[in-house]
């Protein structure tokens, strides 16, 4: 396995609500190799989005509080960086696509200007004109199909901004260059008449168009890692299919590493190389998509997979999992999943679930990890 681009280790995040706190993420670990697409799947409220937002440290603090854990991006622990250096990581290091394309664009600016802002941020960093970024940072060359070097955007020394140079980049030739790039990125996300679109306000675009703009905006920073937080959940089904097709094509062209967060197993199966299944703030299973879908080794994953409707045969009532996601402030004793688990027994009700443990190779010959006391019993689960 090549050197990992992103390594999340034992991340625990609490939310303070009123007088109490609840644990949105509990000891979550994750690894993402360059060029891979890692999916994160789970029900509403299982901590997927918290995970996605905590990596570029976008969680609102307070109420959120990262208790423990490391987020190692390109060899640097982001948790140990001072807050004011984080903007140097975002955009060019870690890009993000959000769930609500409706509100993720500033209603007061034309979309062209908003993409231009992110292009300009990258240009300034590429030229070493903004502080917090090492001057020799290479942008991710999207035309060459090679993976980015673990560009060290964060550990570089503090370089004071070169004001005269910075001003120069705002002068007309640079603006023209930026405008040309904006049009390029709009074409990249299959927008037909980018000249016209750049002049429109977000409210004049449809949801699908806005999500394309958001994707263009995230890609225009040429990030080494792209976090897609349920990019299609707020769209209707046909537009969802279009955006997914687009993202799939872009993955071929751009070959950036993606952390793909979704509640839709079908989408994950199509997009991701690896998948992590989350339940109530825990990562319960992690491994290659094919292996996990073929032989899940956690009862929750198995139950999730069984509840996908099959369009080719009529199965009658879909099997569903009894009970519901526990209240995060009142988690059950023992393994978090035990009240809903058909395999639960005494040890599950007393001891908290085990950490993710590597299992012997499954039917497809790949290894994956599960956080269950009895992973070998899952295939025979009733």
């Amino acid at each position: 396995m090549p050197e990992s681009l992103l390594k999340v280790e034992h991340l625990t995040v609490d939310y303070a609500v009123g007088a109490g706190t609840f644990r949105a993420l509990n000891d979550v670990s994750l690894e993402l190799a360059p060029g891979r697409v890692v999916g994160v799947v789970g029900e509403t409220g299982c901590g997927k989005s918290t995970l996605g937002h905590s990596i570029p440290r976008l969680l609102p603090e307070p109420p959120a509080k990262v208790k423990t854990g490391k987020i190692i991006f390109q060899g640097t622990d982001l948790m140990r960086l001072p807050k004011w250096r984080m903007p140097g990581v975002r955009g060019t290091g870690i890009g993000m696509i959000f769930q609500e394309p409706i509100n993720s664009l500033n209603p007061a600016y034309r979309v062209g200007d908003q993409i231009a802002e992110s292009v300009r941020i990258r240009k300034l960093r590429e030229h070493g004109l903004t502080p917090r970024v090492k001057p020799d940072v290479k942008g991710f060359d999207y035309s060459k199909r090679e993976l980015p070097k673990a560009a060290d955007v964060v550990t570089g020394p503090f370089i004071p901004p070169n004001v005269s140079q910075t001003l120069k980049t705002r002068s007309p030739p640079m603006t023209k260059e930026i405008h040309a790039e904006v049009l390029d990125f709009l074409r990249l996300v299959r927008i037909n008449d980018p000249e016209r679109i750049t002049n429109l306000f977000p409210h004049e675009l449809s949801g699908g168009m806005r999500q394309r703009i958001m994707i263009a905006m995230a890609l225009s920073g040429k990030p080494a890692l792209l976090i897609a937080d349920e990019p299609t959940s707020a769209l209707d089904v046909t537009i969802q299919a279009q955006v997914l097709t687009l993202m799939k094509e872009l993955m071929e062209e751009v070959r950036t590493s993606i952390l793909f967060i979704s509640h839709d197993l079908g989408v994950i199966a199509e997009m991701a190389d690896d998948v992590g299944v989350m339940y109530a703030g825990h990562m319960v299973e992690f491994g290659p998509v094919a292996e996990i879908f073929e032989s899940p080794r956690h009862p929750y994953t198995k139950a999730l997979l069984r509840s996908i409707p099959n369009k080719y045969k009529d199965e009658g009532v879909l099997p569903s999992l009894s009970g519901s996601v526990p209240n995060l402030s009142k988690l059950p004793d023992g393994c978090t999943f035990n009240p809903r688990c058909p395999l639960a027994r005494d040890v599950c009700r007393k001891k908290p679930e085990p950490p993710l443990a590597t299992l012997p190779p499954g039917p497809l010959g790949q290894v994956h990890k599960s956080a269950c006391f009895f992973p070998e019993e899952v295939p025979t689960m009733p």
Partner: protein
Amino acid sequence: MATATVPATKVPAAPGSAVPARRRGRVGANVLLVLRILAANPLTLAGFIVVVIVSVAALLIAIVPAVSLLILGHSVSVLPYPALDAGAFLPGQAPSAAHLFGTDASGADVFSNVATALPTDLGIGFSVAGISLIIGTLLGLVAGFWDAPGSLSGLASTSIMRITDIFLSFPTLVLALAITAAWGRGEIQSELAVIVTWWPFYVRLTRGEVLSIKVQPYVIAARAAGVSESRILFRHVVRNLLEPLAVYFSLDVGTVIVTYSTISYVGVGVPPSIPEWGNLMYSYQDSLLTQPWTVLSVTAAIFITVLGFSLLGDGLRDILDPRSRRILASTAVAGTGGERP
């Protein structure tokens, strides 16, 4: 770019598309849009016209004498007669062609008095509301944007808000009167007194708006794109503050004029030698029944000015908000499809 296969062809300008807007330049297109919105909203248009006339008139009245003194060597006024010129005419004349608003009990021309007071009152309205806007908005931005509890900035934010609360808990007019009485009569003193009571409203308004804007997904998205915090504040947050602030400011200019006139009326504002609507009202109150045109003229001047700013304020939101702007403009030119794609 690997995929930039689509050549950058000029899209033929479909009717109503934004392409002609680009050619005309954004400023030109925006001016056109504003004019269309004004044309579609008669009340806003009325307010706009009043504000423009009043402002231009105030500028002429204030500037022409000074400039003519500089160029011609003697002062030329745009007004027919000098203000507060007691004994110039027969006292107590009813309005006529020679004296539009008649003459008062001292024999001065009422129209000239009221008009000479216009630059003073309008200037006070703009400066008091403007300075309060600047002070209040800056404090409100700080208090709203950096309000994380437990930090140094959070402490600053809390302090600003508690001080604001203290000021807000006084009745504005009473506090302003007390301060002016303490500082002594005079234009600057009384203006400062009103400003002291005025800025907290802007802090409240700004902070509330900032608190709601800064958690909007587009602010998070900008942060995720690597935009620095200060740029987020001044580009993304402030731009979305402009609409409520401009609306409030426009309404506020009128309120300040009324408040300041009240302070002058009770005798702690500008000295009686300076024509000001509150002062005039005070000196005319005895002739309310015998020469009603005197009081009515001053009242009408205040009423029309304040109403103009209020009407404009109500319509400003539509003009400043890009979401309603094009829709309004397209309904204004019904049948052409407007600016919507």
